[in-house]
């Protein structure tokens, strides 16, 4: 009995140590990448947006995020922010391109998503999603941007951002959030990669819109008036973003 309990204790301690080792000490987010995240988060209050963070990990376990990639949401249901394998692969390719450009070892180091009208803390789904990513990469970090919040009494608006990872106290127990310090690192100018990411936003929205419209358009049972209604509806979004 004693031996069993000791083994369990050791296993638990080992897991804890592994988690601690892989846990990031801090996240440094370049201010131009921060700009892209903000732009993206503020682009819509109706749904959560998401993207991937690209950067490098330093010896002292600090994650340095140099740029972000805006992603298309395959599942637009509330609070579902999973990334498809194709997107992950595309992000890796982009990271390689960045690595070539900057001469630094870049890779996908985390993800971000927005919480419009919702508190900045990760939901249970978020914590579990984060834990899932950590199974592929234990040092993966998550960022959440909360926006479109207003205190009606003081007419104060708020934008918040937080950084977290997931940890499991014991095998089989619930995943819990771990707070990771995050700092925005000043930059003299906006980097090329971030400018490109910012410009991607309207293009991605247009693609999303086209896909949606195509599905609707293929509904042959719709009568012409409905089709006209849908058609006039359709393409405004990307133009509005560009405006």
């Amino acid at each position, binding site marked *: 009995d004693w031996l069993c309990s000791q083994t369990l204790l050791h296993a638990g301690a080992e897991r804890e140590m592994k988690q601690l080792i892989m846990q990031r000490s*801090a996240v*440094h987010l370049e*201010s131009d990448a*921060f*700009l892209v995240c*903000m*732009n993206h988060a*503020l*682009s819509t*209050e*109706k749904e959560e947006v998401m993207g991937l963070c690209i950067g490098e990990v330093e010896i*002292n376990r*600090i994650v340095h995020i140099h740029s972000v990639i805006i992603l298309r949401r395959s599942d637009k249901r509330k609070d579902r922010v999973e990334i498809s394998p194709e997107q992950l692969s595309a992000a890796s390719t982009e990271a390689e391109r960045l690595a070539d450009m900057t001469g630094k070892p870049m890779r996908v180091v985390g993800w971000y998503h927005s919480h*419009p009208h919702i508190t900045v803390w990760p939901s249970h789904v978020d914590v579990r999603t984060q834990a899932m990513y950590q199974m592929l990469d234990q040092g993966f970090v998550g960022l959440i941007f909360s926006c479109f919040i207003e205190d009606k009494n*003081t*007419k*104060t*608006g*708020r934008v*918040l*951002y*937080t*950084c*977290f990872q997931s940890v499991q106290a014991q095998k089989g127990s619930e995943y819990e959030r771990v*707070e990771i*310090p*995050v*700092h*925005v*690192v*000043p930059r*003299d*100018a*906006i980097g090329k990669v971030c*400018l490109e990411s*910012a*410009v991607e936003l*309207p293009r991605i*929205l*247009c693609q999303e819109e086209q896909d*949606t419209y195509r599905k*609707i*358009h293929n509904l042959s049972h*719709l009568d*012409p*008036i*409905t*089709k*006209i*209604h849908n*058609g006039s*509806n*359709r*393409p*405004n*979004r*990307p*133009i*509005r973003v*560009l405006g």
Partner: protein
Amino acid sequence: VPGFAAGGSGIDGDVSIMAASISGYTFSSVCFHSANSNSDHEGFLLGEVRQEETVSISDTQISTAELLQVVEIHNHDPCAQLFSFYDYAGKVNEDNLNRILKDRRKSVIGWYRFRRNTQQQMSFREQIIHKQLTQLLGVPDLVFLLFSFISTANSSTHALEYVLFRPNRRYNQRITLTIPNLGNTSQQEYKVSSVPNTSLNYAKVIKEHGAEFFDKDGVMKDIRTIFQVYSALQDKVQAVCGEVEQSERVKEKIQEDVNKLKQQIALRKRKTAEEERRLREAQNAESHPTSEENSEPSETSLLSRVAFHAPSAPERPGTSPNPPSYSDLLSQEDSLLSSSSSPTSAALLPRPQAVGSPGHPTPGPLGMGLGLSLGLGSDSLDRQAAGQEDDDDDDDDDDDDDEDSSEYENLVSEAAHLPMVSASVLAQGRPAALSPDGDARGSQTS
């Protein structure tokens, strides 16, 4: 900017409601510039104000016309540093104002300020400046947007709070600021089902006129046209992006050159100071032959003092993990350190943890240099409650001893609580001056 249509005593008499909006891109841009700034950050808001009249009919009145004033913030013009258009007393300099704004002056509808760890209310100086701007710019209902940044103790969560004020009004001074986005612009959903209609006449009419909407493929003609508009816009944005990228690279290069020049100037100043010291000590040695044993420790103190001074030039200092020993500095003759001894210790106080950090990693307070501590007075007074700033213009050197450490919040951060900073972070130049007051008043180190 339109004047006020309603009668009465102008601004106060009118009970018009105000709605304000700021574009997401402008908002993010302000956040970007603020994040890049070591100190407070400010700038002007450009946009448009218009009045909309809504007529409503109720049981008691035939019609009530309500005046809705709509403020749209389209863009912002960030100031490169604080005190660029006003002085310590809060007196606005119109020439500087014009130089900053140039032809954008006519689109100014307000101004903004970003501060860390402060209350969401206008400071006395801000109120004074606001009144003058109102007059000089000729905008009766000039708005003021206040950003305040706070963080949790472990810096894992940060909040940016913002309030839009219209200080020229007596009541309802705070207005809700909306950020128009794709989620709130009225857009109807797609219809996935049609209302069934079996009328033959209906079908006939639709078939006849349907051709005007649909092309031979059955695709709506408008779709193609709109897509062309979108493509053209996207191409334009792409082109502008290219231009912005080039100008950003130029800006980076210039900033690098500026930093190098500043380093050279600092080096030159150091050398001149050293030479002067040597001359003076040589003279002292001549007149007091017994003080020769003091010359060596003086040299040490000189070097340690000079080493401490040099990084206070407005560039990022290198990582200096250990503070210079104060026993060296403080044990020397007063002539060397008369104006700097007490603020030195204040500058080294770790920042109070409870109010959070500026949100970016910086080396310890020791890197800030003596020069900074002397020039801090005025801007920090902003953060005190209104009405206490009647001695703005006093010589700050004497006041420094009594100022509490919270003044240093925006410049000095707690190295002990922050993770280690890699050299690459420090090597980046900073767009804003390290000290908000240093540049305006002239560095104390010269």
